[in-house]
Structure formats: structure tokens, C-alpha cells
């Protein structure tokens, strides 16, 4: 019998938003523990793909399928996907005024635990966990005391996403342009966090526009997207080559 460790399998995926086709036959295979970088010019469909994986309702899947842990992912609601270990680090984390970040994290974590049939964490147990997680990520607890993402700087918002990822311990983490808008220090901290969370059981999809994130997080595969499909797959050297030659190098080749 074939040993299958495929976590995510995307086949001929087509998706549109407002009847405008964005994804036009995307294929991707992710195995446990792998890190895949998806690069590509603006408008190539990278963020759409990330949102379709998480189940955003603005996107309509018109053809193809996605299998995740042996299940048809498209049958699952947004929260069911989250319960089964899919985590999306948002490109633009959403502000929720008046909701304390710590309360939010605890509510979310307990919703996940309940869905998995585990007991909810008490307030003290949660405090202990969050302190430990913060220490591991070398973050302080200032973000916990404020309303979710309200008034956070770009770097703080992304750090808050990484904190949630560390807390929820997902099987598949999708990082949607987590590096965009970050200064060097923030980028370094985010990358450090991601590297700490590397695990043979955890896979990651890094959606990024620039090669610089891949200096600090080494991917197993680099994919290039253009016009809603993955048009080239390689290793880390592909990213360097892109950096050097620009996306037109590939997109022009595609068009030719």
C-alpha cells in the first residue's frame, strides 16, 4: 500500500469573485511538514487562493476540488476548516473595537477546543499558556491588553497573527503576505516565530510578493503564479532567480 502523507491536494481549481474568474485551474500538492512559497505578480490570484482555502464566502469555486486530510474541503464551513487545523494569517488583520485581544484569543481557542471535544481552558490555565507562548515568540504582553487589532501598527497586527498561529497550533498555516508592510525588525521577529513553528506535522503556505521573506524562512518549494495558475515550480533558487529577473521573465514566457 502506498504511504500517503499528502495533507492538501488541490486539483484544477477554478474560482471567481463577482463573476470574474480569478483562479483558472490551479494544482498544488502539500505534504505534512512542507513549506511552500507561492509568489507571483499582483493580481495573479495568490490572495484569492489563500482565501478560498480558508472558505471566504465572496469567492465562488466553479470547478475543481480540494482535499484536506482526506476530506472534501469545499464541504466544510469556515469555522469547521479552522477547527480542523487550517489557519489563515491575514494580509489585513481585521479590527474588532471594544473586544479585548486576550478575551478574543481565549474565546477563539476555547471554541477550537470545544469543537475538538477537549475541555475549555480556565482563565488561569489560559494565562499560563499565553505567557509561555509569548516567551517563546519573544513578544511582550502589551498587545493582549488592547482591543483586537485596533490601533495596532502594521508590525503589531502581523505579530498578533503569528501569536494566534502559535496558540492554535494549526496543521496547515497559510500566511497571506505576512511580510508586506513590515520593517526589517518586525520581519525578523515574524520570521523567527514562523521558524519556531516549523514541525514535521505542520505544513505552511507562504504567499508572498518578495523574495526577502524567504531569506529567513527557507521553503521546500517555490511556486510562481500567473493568471490564476501555478506556472512554475522550483526550489529556493527559483525565488532568487525571480528577484533577479522580475516576474515578467516568467509571465512573458507564459504568454509566448
Amino acid at each position: 500500500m502506498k504511504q500517503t502523507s499528502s495533507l492538501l491536494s488541490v486539483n484544477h481549481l477554478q474560482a471567481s469573485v463577482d463573476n470574474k474568474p480569478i483562479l483558472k485551474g490551479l494544482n498544488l500538492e502539500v505534504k505534512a511538514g512542507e513549506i511552500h512559497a507561492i509568489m507571483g505578480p499582483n493580481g495573479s490570484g495568490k490572495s484569492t487562493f489563500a482565501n478560498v482555502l480558508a472558505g471566504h464566502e465572496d469567492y465562488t469555486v466553479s470547478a475543481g476540488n480540494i482535499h484536506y486530510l482526506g476530506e472534501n474541503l469545499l464541504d466544510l464551513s469556515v469555522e469547521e476548516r479552522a477547527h480542523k487545523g487550517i489557519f489563515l494569517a491575514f494580509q489585513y488583520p481585521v479590527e474588532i473595537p471594544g473586544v479585548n485581544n486576550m478575551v478574543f484569543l481565549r474565546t477563539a481557542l476555547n471554541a477550537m477546543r470545544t469543537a475538538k471535544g477537549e475541555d475549555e481552558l480556565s482563565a488561569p490555565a489560559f494565562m499560563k499558556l499565553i505567557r509561555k507562548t509569548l516567551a517563546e515568540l519573544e513578544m511582550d504582553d502589551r498587545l493582549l491588553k488592547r482591543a483586537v487589532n485596533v490601533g495596532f501598527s502594521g508590525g503589531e497586527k502581523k505579530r498578533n497573527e503569528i501569536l494566534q498561529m502559535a496558540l492554535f497550533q494549526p496543521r496547515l498555516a497559510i500566511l497571506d503576505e505576512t511580510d508586506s508592510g513590515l520593517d526589517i525588525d518586525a520581519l525578523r521577529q515574524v520570521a523567527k516565530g514562523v521558524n519556531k513553528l516549523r514541525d514535521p506535522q505542520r505544513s505552511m503556505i507562504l504567499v508572498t510578493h518578495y523574495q526577502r521573506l524567504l531569506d529567513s524562512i527557507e521553503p521546500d518549494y517555490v511556486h510562481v503564479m500567473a493568471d490564476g495558475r501555478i506556472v512554475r515550480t522550483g526550489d529556493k533558487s527559483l525565488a532568487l532567480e525571480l528577484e533577479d529577473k522580475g516576474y515578467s521573465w516568467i509571465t512573458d514566457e507564459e504568454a509566448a
Partner: protein
Amino acid sequence: MRTSNDIVEDMQQSGYSEGFITEIESDTFPPGLDEAIIRKLSAKKQEPEYMLERRLKAYQYWQTMQEPHWGKVEYPEIDYQAISYFSAPKSGEDAPKSLDEVDPALLETYNKLGIPLVEQQLLAGVAVDAVFDSVSVATTFREELKKAGVIFCSISEAIRDYPELVQKYLGSVVPHTDNFFAALNAAVFSDGTFVYVPEGVRCPMELSTYFRINEANTGQFERTLIIAEKGSYVSYLEGCTAPMRDENQLHAAVVELIALEDAQIKYSTVQNWYPGDAEGKGGIYNFVTKRGICKGDRSHISWTQVETGSAITWKYPSCILKGDDSIGEFYSVAVTRGRQQADTGTKMYHIGKNTRSTIVSKGISADRGVNSYRGLVRMNKGAETGRNHTQCDSLLIGDQCAAHTFPYIEVANPTARVEHEATTSKIDANQLFYCKQRGLSEEEAVALIVNGFCKEVFNELPMEFAVEARKLLEISLEGAVG
């Protein structure tokens, strides 16, 4: 073996009956209103002559008045002759004998709110069992208040036992000439609550209508009077978070608060009367006049209300800031869904020097609910350096609901400062997606977002009340999105 009936009988014999077990009446007055009905009502309540005179005077005045229609609410004409003005409280005979006889939908709500069984029985008006347990609670409660010198009783008792206080203060803040519904209430009020806190006393506990639940069932025309003497403090919680279903349509209560020098009154309401069905059939018309006077210098009145029930809510808990340096506050959350309508807000009358007021109003509309904030801030000529800050936020859920803001500002003193801020927002699809991606269900997400929106108001509620208010809001908005 002693039964709960024996114990209740003991209680009655030992003199507690007047306090916490409402006399059992079996009759209801025929519909209609005239002088004879008022005389009958007054006689039934064994009122002294002065109260009958007041009632008759109010009734005569009421007859000269027209029902007002300036609110942004719509309802069919009310036939005042079709209402019965005295309806006996649920007695042992017609009350449900056990929770099995209570509307299951009501019980489901109780369970969701996490209300203990005994309390559920009490709220649902189940006869003896509930009384059995609560009497002892109520008794210790009463003893402790007595030690502090605080009077906490039904307004009917107060009319008989404390005539000087009642004659001095009843109608002093909301006279019967004030408005149509206040006049009607002054003529026919059935019962209500009386609180008196003596000079310098800090009331040792939150006073709550929970302990007066019998009265709550008695009727649609409640009368509440709270007097805080110099330097005293009292926190009063009105209503409970359970839906008190009522056959009667019109609920026209009057609440008066009087705070003397350095006194503070905190009045919190969680109102969850029957809102009617999704199509707007049935439900309570909650037309209430609530007003407090900061009579003494440095006195302080705050109103906090969470309004989730009633078909129509039409009320403006207000403060007359007469004493210098006195403070008025109004914190409100009003939720309308289905066909509910709310026209609510406050009036702050700044009369004394350096008086301050704060208004925070949060309106939430879902389905076809209509929510209006209406507020008046008036700085009189003498209100030197008076200050007001008003914040009105509206949250819309769905695209068939509506929110309106009607702020009125009148300033007659050049040193006074009035600020008004208003926002309208919708629950954002991206907020919901974010929460769901973090594992929350749609309902959990809505609850979280709405609770965040209402936070400043909930912070003003006493702790246990805030917890119940949060849960109530969650239940009220179940299924509102999607």
C-alpha cells in the same frame, strides 16, 4: 413532615406577609376607566384619602390631554376603555403549579441565561415552591437593610406607612401634568417600589426587583420612587433579564429619583418584555417616564439601561441637574429586531453651576427593527461652565433595519460646552470572516462583536447584571445574521 405550604403559612402569620407575599386576589376589574374604577382601585389597596385625591386629580387632568404622537414609532390606536386597570397578580389558584405548565420557550430562555431552577420558578410565577426558598433569602435581606435604616418596600406599603415622605416626593419630579402617560399612571398606578436611604448611609447591597418579583407581575402601571438623603448611596437594579410575558399591551410606568446633597443613585435596567412575534404581532408597548433630580450640590444620578424587549420602547430616562457640581449620566444599549421599534434617549437639564453630564447610547438594529436615539441637552442661563459629552453609536445588522439620531441641543450660557459624536456602522463581513477563521461560529462572532460595541455601557452595570445582559444580548440576536 413540614411542607413548603406550612412554612409559607408561618411566614404569613409572623408578619412577613405584607412584605413579600402579595395578597392573593382572585378578581380582575372589568375593562374601562372612570372615577368609580379609580375609587375602587384605591379602596382595594386600602389607601389613605390623600392618595385617592391625587389619583382623581390626575385622572381629571388626563381627560383634558391628548395622546402624543411625536415619537418615531408606529402602532395602532390604543383604546383606553378596553384596558383593565386592576388585574390580580398570579395567585396560587391560577398560577402554574410547576414548571411543567410553563411555556417551554420561556424555560429555554431561562436555561440559556443560566438562571437557577428556583429562580426560574419565581420568574415564571410558579406558586409555592419558589416562594418557599426565596422567602428566607428575602428575609435576611430585609433584616440587613433595616439595620442600615434603608426602607425598601412596595409603593403601596409606603403610601400607608410613610405618608410624609410619599406626600413630599411622589410626583415632585414627574408631576401628573408632565405628559399623557404620566397622568394616566398617576391616576391608575397599581404598585411599584419605594426606596429611602437615610443621610450618610451607603446602602449595604444592590437593591433589585428580583426580590419584588410578585409586584412585577401585578401590572402595567408601576410607580417607583427612590429618595437618597444627603451623602447617601444606593444602586438599584430594575427588572430581570427574563421575559416577563404579559397579556396587557400598554406598560406605562413612572420612575422618580431624588438625590440630595452629595448623594448618588445608580439606576440600572435590563428590560426584556415580550417583543411580539417576528411579524410584529403582540408585544408590550413600553411607554415609560423616568426622571431623576440632582437636587443637592455634588449629587450624582446615573441611568444605565439595556433594552432588548418590548414591541415598542419609548422612554427617556432624564436628569435635572439642579445642584451645583451635580452629575448626570445615561448609558444605554437598545436592541431592535423583528418588527421592534425603539425611540429612546435622555434629557439632561443643566440648571446648577458646573454641572456635568455624559450620554453614551448604543443602538443595535437587525431584521426590520427601527432604532432612534432622541436626546436633549439643555444648558440653562445659570449653568456656568456646564459640560456635556454625548456619544451615539448605531450598529446595523442586515439591510432592512434602520437607525436614526435626533439630538437636540439648547445652550443659554456662553461658558457651557456641549459635545456630540455620532457613528453608524454595519457588522462587517470581514469581521465575521476573521472570527470564523479563528473557530467561532457566526452567532459567537456576532455576540463578540456586539458585546465589544456595547462595552462602555456594560462596564457601567453591576458585575452579575453585566454578565446576564451580555448573555441576553446574545440570545436576542440569535440568527440575526445570515
